[in-house]
């Protein structure tokens, strides 16, 4: 099995996996499992469900590997799968009450939420935002959670998956301008939520 070079594009890795190179798939999982998990987690709000959905996303990639065309962008294809699975999962969960990330862990411990106990493995973010208080983080997560689904979806694809607006438009099946509008509204809402921390924002600038 050929070694996977770090500069190989996602599409090259996928083509190699189509030819039977399993190491290429391992590399793809390493590159994307974190962002996919976060995207799914912010949609379904339950870590164990997010874990299962993330696994399903990659299994769908395996099942449909032969259909992948080299001309397509792998990330677009991957998040299209993830989005569809999230929608399916949300439909299933819609009839059930599920804990929110900002829901207190216990009745007698209102100060700690699920997001507080989840590990934050974003080292660069840790370095940059070491001064960001837990309160600010909770405010951000709460603001994102309260976004309308279409705005949250665009926000997550842009901020978590780091996809360009053009690809988000392709994944969501909406015009690019609509995507940008939704993103603008999402940012405005987040800005309102963060208005108490305006001084901190100014300091960052």
């Amino acid at each position, binding site marked *: 099995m050929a070694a996977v070079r770090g500069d190989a594009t996602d599409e090259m890795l996928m083509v190699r996996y189509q030819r039977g190179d399993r190491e290429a798939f391992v590399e793809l999982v390493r590159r994307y499992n974190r962002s996919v998990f*976060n995207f799914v987690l912010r949609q379904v709000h339950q870590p164990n469900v997010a874990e299962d959905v993330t696994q399903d996303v990659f299994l769908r990639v395996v099942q449909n590997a032969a259909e992948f065309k080299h001309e397509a962008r792998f990330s677009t294809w991957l998040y299209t799968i993830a989005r569809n699975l999230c929608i399916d999962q949300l439909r299933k969960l819609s009839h059930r009450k599920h804990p929110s990330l900002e829901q207190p862990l216990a009745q007698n411990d209102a100060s700690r939420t699920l997001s507080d106990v989840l590990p934050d493995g974003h080292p660069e973010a840790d370095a940059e935002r070491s001064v960001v208080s837990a309160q600010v983080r909770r405010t*951000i997560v709460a603001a994102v959670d309260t976004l309308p689904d279409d705005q949250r979806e665009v926000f997550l694809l842009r901020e978590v998956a780091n996809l360009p607006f053009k690809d988000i438009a392709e994944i969501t099946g909406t015009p690019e301008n609509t995507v940008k509008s939704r993103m*603008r509204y999402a940012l405005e809402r987040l800005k309102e939520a963060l208005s108490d921390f305006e001084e901190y924002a100014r300091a960052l*600038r």
Partner: protein
Amino acid sequence: MDCEKFDRVVLDLLYDELDELTNAAAKRHMEHCTRCRGIGAGLRATREVGALPLVEPPPGLEIRILDAERKLRDRLPLRQRMGRAISIMASYAMRPQLAMAALLLLMIGSSLLLLRERSNERNAAHVAERGVPENESETVAIVPITPQREKARAPAPLAARGEPDRVAKKESPDRAERRARSVAPAKRYAEPEPALGRLGGGIEEQSSGSSALPTDEGESDFGAAMSAYRDGRYAEAQQRFDEIAGRGEARAAEASLYAAQALRHTAGCPAAAPRFEQVHSANAGTQVGYEAAWQAAECHRALGNVSRARYNYQLLLTATGYADRAQAALSEMDEASAAAVAARSAPKARPKAAAAAPPAATAAPKAKKPAAAAGASKRSVEIDTSNAYR
């Protein structure tokens, strides 16, 4: 850029998705417009402060995914496995290296085919004789002309007289080469007949080529006659040629000429000379007629019939391809006559000088006299013995 356009591109500016020109224009606009500067700064601050903290996936997730992938691959239906195999093969087949290799093999293969076909071609050239349109049946191999070959290919009538060197000296190099090519090229189908070498180049080559490869029944008869002629069966050849000439076919004239040739072989020049003259008169003005006149002249000359020989040579002084030869023959005859006259006058002067000479010395002129006399008739004697007329 105005505020309206800025509002459309502000998000692209925030996420660095603008091209350089628009990016610069948007930034310039922000410098002048307080409103847009405020919007841009607010969005940037929100994005920076409001960056969503990412959650690290559970440690076992990656392993679970890879295990599940392994199991799924093993459970893949045959159809999907075949699809994957086809995909793999297709991906190899579509590689440019493979296409280049296939193209290279194709080029090499076609080149080999062409080279093989070319190597089978005979080293031959189709030549037109003296500007005459090329004959399909005539194929002449190109053979390098060595001095010996050229000497051997010298025109038969003069070569037969034992003076090939002299002839070569008289002719210009170009002319000699042209004659050598036209009269005695290496024949592919048959070796040239010595007696036929006396014929004019055009007639001889045409008849020899076509006789060797008859194309129809008439040609077949002519070919059979030629075969008999070449095999030395002159009586049979003469009979066959006479029959062809009597039928008045396309090659009747040639046949009558060959019949006369065959007669010369069987009965000699005394019988052949009138026959040649007859062929000449029947085909006056044609190549066959000229050749017949030439042969008649040669026969008469061999027989010592100088006046008839001269007459026939003179007829050829205006004939294309024969004029030079006829002129040369006439000159030689003049020289021979002059030599004979000198030889006849020489014995009358010599006795006066010989009177004072010792008897032994007188033996020399006496001995020379027959030689001089022989020199006077040298031409005819040599022709008689060398031209194989008899």
